[in-house]
């Protein structure tokens, strides 16, 4: 968050701090604490008042809890032997086409070109998966292999031609969650995304995940 609005009505102090850049919570919080300290010092006539060291009163939100997902005990064949790239669907999020470095469709090639523009180390041996889609918070998603059935998800936007006067490619991808693939009878049936809602649930992947995508054949 890069916007802070806070008040202490008892002291008659209000603070508004805005920053037109992402993830500036720490600097604007420090600025707000300094402003509060100076305002309090001026009220009491104490010029040596120091900023509060505990910023908990200006902290917002609860710590996110990781969603615990229990993979199926049966049919957990190694993903390395299976082709998990392909089309998946969720009624709320729509269609997600997962591309691997071996995907040959024109649309997947465009997706891979986008990722190669910001990751020159992306090789033909990569086990990562890639998505390009239209959503509110991201246009590109990358699945980085973590454990046998799990991938770490990074989501954001890739600007292959830069933006504005600076044409250097860049991305805003950041950690977004965890994907767990479910295999039945040596075939991938879908994957669940967890770590988004902060709600902890137990149970099979398709029930405990925040989002469940079904493999489309």
């Amino acid at each position, binding site marked *: 968050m890069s916007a802070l609005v806070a*008040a202490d009505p008892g002291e008659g102090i*209000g603070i*508004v701090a805005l920053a037109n*850049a*992402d993830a*500036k919570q720490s600097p604007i919080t420090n600025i707000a604490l300094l402003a509060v300290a100076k305002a309090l010092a001026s009220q009491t006539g104490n010029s040596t008042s120091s900023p509060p060291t505990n910023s908990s009163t200006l902290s917002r939100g609860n710590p996110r809890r990781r969603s615990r997902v229990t993979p199926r005990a049966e049919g957990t064949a190694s993903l390395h032997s299976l082709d998990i790239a392909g089309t998946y669907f969720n009624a709320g999020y729509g269609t997600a086409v997962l591309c691997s470095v071996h995907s040959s469709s024109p649309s997947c090639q465009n997706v891979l070109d986008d990722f190669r523009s910001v990751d020159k180390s992306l090789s033909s041996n990569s086990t990562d998966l890639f998505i390009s889609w239209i959503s*509110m918070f991201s246009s590109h998603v990358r699945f980085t292999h973590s454990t046998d059935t799990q991938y770490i998800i990074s989501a954001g936007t890739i600007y292959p031609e830069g933006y504005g006067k600076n044409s250097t490619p860049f991305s*805003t991808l950041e950690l977004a969650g965890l994907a767990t693939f479910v295999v039945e009878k040596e075939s991938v049936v879908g994957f669940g995304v967890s770590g988004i809602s902060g709600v902890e649930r137990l149970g099979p992947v398709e029930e405990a995940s925040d989002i469940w995508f079904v493999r489309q054949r």
Partner: protein
Amino acid sequence: MYIVGSYVVSTLSDMRFADFVSNRVFKSLSMNSSTYSIDAAVNTGRFTSTWTSFGRLIPHWLQDEFADLMAGPAGVISSVEDLVRHLFWSTWYLTYRPRAGTMGQNISEWRCRP
């Protein structure tokens, strides 16, 4: 939660949530630099650019096609002055309650604080 809340408000008021907030909050508090509309902000000539955390220029993150959906939890374009005005009135009302003859005096007290 906020999306549901904005839907409830828009249904009961029979208008877009953004319009409800503009009419009932922004105009009421003379927050003349506040809007949900990117076009309106651009037309003022005072709509600032936005950057990533590492300093790259990027477009405004919330496009118009999603503005109504996200109007509950996000999307207000405003200024420090307008938000101070909103902050004053929201905390003043909770703390002092309106009394005849005191509203103007309290605003002056806030503006004169160092």
